[in-house]
């Protein structure tokens, strides 16, 4: 199974060095880091390399393989032919310490220059409330394992040490974007990025996105949106002020929601949207406020706007698609929308959401309701049961139980239907779907 591979490994220090040739055994399934370890155990015990997890999780083992910035532990030997020479060199953008180990302190210095997360001063621990859709945008950037491959590949600093003082690099653009999109951060990150971290020096070559082992869409989801919004905040002080002040209106809407006052929340959100019709937080608050009042058809108009504003990031889009499909289905169930008229939109929204969802079960509740409104009861029951195996927040579970209960009632499974209903009621007695669901159930003689 094994074969002997030819390796060239850079050896040396900050003063001098050269590529050293090795012939080394390779076994099935091995990654480049295994080969480096074999060299250490046999031919070169003092060969310097960094690594920790050997599972692509810590970002320690960054180097360049045949000139490409890569993780040594995630590059399989099977990607090379048996006769290929594999050349391993240290990251080029940073000074060499020894062999494959470089001095990456540049990155830690830049990290210290980004002002830290600044939550509202009066928010106590335990009282943070954020919607999943709102945190997902920043969560994508928090997947970063700090391998610094993006920093290594970025041409602005790759062979230009002179640019280093002014340029933070893609890793820290996503850090700034992460804070910018954090629902509770209070600082202005876009100006910061432009004025102090050299965002303007990036000319969107996307090389950073290509090498990111975490598949973070550095350019599309962080750099471009930051640049776009920097443009409007940077050059138009009126827009900038306007952005900061009425933001309080959407904060007020969210507070009203927390307090359970949906109509107050609706008013605050609408006030904010008059100033800025695409304010994400206000749109979200309005959607929730309308749904809470059982006005699903109107909520669907809001989710349609949210969807249009969701941008290209997968997780945002998925969340927006899922939300839109869901409120449309609730509207159909409640008789506020006509199934025939909107079936096409529902089906395509669901389908797109499913394509972006990482697991099928995420949308099982929506599929169940979709089947239910079409009267495909057996399918609805099957999917409804599936949702129950999953650990979901109480209101989601209440919704899923409700759908299941209705579908079971339709099939004459009254006992199971009633017990699903009662569990649903305990979990969420104020579910706005209840009135329509109840009347459906009464028709079938259960409710």
């Amino acid at each position, binding site marked *: 199974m094994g074969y002997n591979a030819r390796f060239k490994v850079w050896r040396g220090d900050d003063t001098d060095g050269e590529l050293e040739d090795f012939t080394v055994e390779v076994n099935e399934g091995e990654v480049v880091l295994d080969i480096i370890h074999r060299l250490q155990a046999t031919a070169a015990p003092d060969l310097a*390399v960094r690594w920790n997890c050997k*599972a692509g999780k810590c970002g320690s083992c960054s180097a360049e393989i045949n000139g490409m910035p890569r993780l040594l532990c995630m590059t399989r030997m099977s990607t090379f032919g048996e006769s290929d020479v594999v050349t391993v060199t240290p990251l080029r953008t940073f000074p060499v310490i020894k062999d494959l180990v470089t001095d990456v302190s540049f990155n830690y210095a830049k990290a210290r220059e980004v002002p830290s997360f600044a939550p509202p001063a009066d928010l106590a621990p335990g009282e943070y409330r954020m919607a999943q859709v709102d945190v997902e945008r920043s969560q994508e950037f928090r997947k970063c394992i700090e391998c610094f491959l993006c920093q290594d590949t970025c041409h602005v600093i790759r062979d230009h040490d002179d640019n280093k003082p002014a340029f933070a690099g893609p890793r820290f653009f996503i850090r700034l974007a992460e804070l910018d999109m954090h629902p509770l951060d209070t600082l202005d990150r876009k100006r910061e990025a432009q004025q102090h971290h050299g965002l303007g020096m990036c000319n969107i070559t996307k090389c950073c996105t290509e090498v990111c082992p975490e598949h973070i869409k550095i350019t599309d989801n962080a750099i471009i949106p930051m640049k776009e919004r920097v443009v409007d905040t940077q050059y138009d002080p009126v827009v900038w002020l306007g952005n900061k002040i009425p933001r309080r209106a959407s904060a007020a809407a969210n507070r009203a929601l927390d307090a359970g006052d949906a109509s107050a929340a609706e008013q605050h959100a609408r006030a904010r949207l008059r100033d800025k019709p695409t304010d994400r937080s206000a749109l979200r608050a309005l959607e929730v406020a309308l749904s809470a009042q059982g006005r699903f058809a109107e909520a669907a108009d809001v989710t349609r706007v949210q969807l249009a504003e969701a941008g290209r990031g997968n997780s945002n889009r998925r969340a927006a698609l899922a939300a839109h499909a869901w409120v449309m289905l609730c509207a159909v169930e409640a008789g506020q929308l006509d199934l025939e008229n909107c079936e096409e939109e529902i089906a395509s929204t669901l389908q797109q959401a499913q394509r972006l969802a990482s697991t099928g079960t995420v949308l099982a509740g929506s599929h169940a309701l979709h089947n239910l409104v079409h009267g495909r009861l057996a399918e609805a029951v099957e999917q409804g049961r599936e949702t129950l195996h999953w650990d979901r*927040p109480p209101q989601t579970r209440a919704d899923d139980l409700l759908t299941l209960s209705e579908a079971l009632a339709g099939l004459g499974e009254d006992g199971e239907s009633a017990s699903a209903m009662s569990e649903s009621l305990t979990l969420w007695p104020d579910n706005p779907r209840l009135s329509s669901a109840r009347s459906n159930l009464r028709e079938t003689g259960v409710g």
Partner: protein
Amino acid sequence: MTEIERHAYDVVVIGAGGAGLRAAIEARMQGKRTAIVCKSLFGKAHTVMAEGGIAASMGNVNSKDNWQVHFRDTMRGGKFLNHWRMAELHAKEAPDRVWELETYGALFDRTKDGRISQRNFGGHEYPRLAHVGDRTGLEMIRTLQQKVVSLQQEDLRTHRDGEAMIRVFAECTVTELLKDTTGGDQGRISGAVGYLRENGTFVVFEAPTVILATGGIGKSFKVTSNSWEYTGDGHALAMKAGATLLNMEFVQFHPTGMVWPPSVKGILVTESVRGDGGVLRNSEGKRFMFDYVPAVFRKQYAETEEEADRWYDDPSNNRRPPELLPRDEVARAINSEVKAGRNSPAGGVFLDIASRLPADAIRKKLPSMYHQFKELADVDITAEPMEVGPTCHYVMGGVEVDPDTAAAVVPGLFAAGEVAGGMHGSNRLGGNSLSDLLVFGRRAGLAASAYVDGLGASRPAVSDRDVEAAHRSAVALFDGDGGENPYALHAELQQTMNDLVGIIRKAEEMQSALDRLDALKARARNITVQGDQRFNPGWHLALDLSNMLIVSECVARSALVREESRGGHTRDDFPTMSPEWRKVNLICRPDGDGVAVERKPLPVMPPELLALFERDELNKYMTDDEISTLPEATA
């Protein structure tokens, strides 16, 4: 004396994982000058690998959850060998520690009403694990790392030096703790000595307190989910400084690690594969777990494949498949099949999901496993079975500490996180480690600060002779001409521990392990290190090896003494749990060149906590004598 860098601090924290960072943050917030020392780059500590989540009874998903339920689950998981006070503090304080992370900037997954979402996990009665997808450890490390940076930014504003109050010494390995001769027969901690990996320069930290937060010991075993850092340094440093280790025989083996290809052997395969219908088969194609259901679990587990298969759709009318027995049971079963020769080609068993679910469903339900096997093993888990086997995952044993202050027996020495013992008893529940790190990291930081305050002018002094001795012994490895190769010795050690002190233990095998450890110890004296002191992995390993040898001896000796099977310690020759042994902690202390094991009574749980359990349950664990002294309320 050769050139040695010197630094003075109030508190030196060794380790930059969850426990170390939380401890350092606390010490700095108490106004103490604090150093964080770690072997890797900042932000790479082992905590980064944690996946599932962090346990805290916030009750966001099920409001019935509270600290009492969490406490009960933890004690059950540890088979009642936990230090009750640690389990109590942990259960009570974990929610605050998680909420605090949010104020530092952590972004956990959310519930529909915007709170921190919580997921179910083995042994936890309610959904309890706060999480971020399957990368919770990364979120925790990054959050704490960024909190340290934010404190440095504060210090930059107030002291015009960001490192005035808290400084990170990354890629610096501590090799020795220092003590003065005052403060009783023990001597007090006066600092630590280490070397910078980058250039081999030695560094002395003069400090009255040291907090050990060095993590675990898994690298002494051949098959492990742990990283190279897990060489038991903190355990060994504590022993060498005269502190004691508690219950070192308890090592958790996760039943499903990858076994093929050899290069990824040990990497974790998540439990959800089995939760979603995956089954274990031996080389004869037999679904063998049905043969391994122990009597105590008979009632809850299916007896036929048909019943087990029905459970997935109808859990209320059928019993669970035996693949979902607790981790230790499954790990032992796999081990027995392999020992009986019914193993898969790579020496594990088959974990089959391909024949159980449609390909699409597998890709949807287990995306990261699909990805992991595709990328690392070229195995398409929708088309063929995986090969899996047990992998060394976590050490329950550790430095013996005071539950409230994390203080070890040596004045000025503290320990928190995986390196500390007592909290998890004989077996740790998933998710209880990350919470442990925060709760006891903070407590260690507080207590170390209080200790510093109590010192007044009587600071312990560092002895230059000790520093020079520590330096000399570390560089002596370059002078050796014995010709032993550290990599080869390490491989032999790992094989020995894996084969002879692994999941299933026997007196003869452990005895022979101890003999081999003796021989390895002797050979380690003949190691020859090539090259110079600059970033030299061969030298680093040689130094780590001496720690692994000490710790391995502790594990093997304690395991030989404890004549029962409980949690992460299974004796083939003493297969049952013994109520008498439950009352016993095993303490390792240094003894000449080796290790001595002593028995010490387990601290007794107070009545108000005992009252949280049914008498029936206590009957299973306690001796008749203990039961007869229980207050009536527990009946």
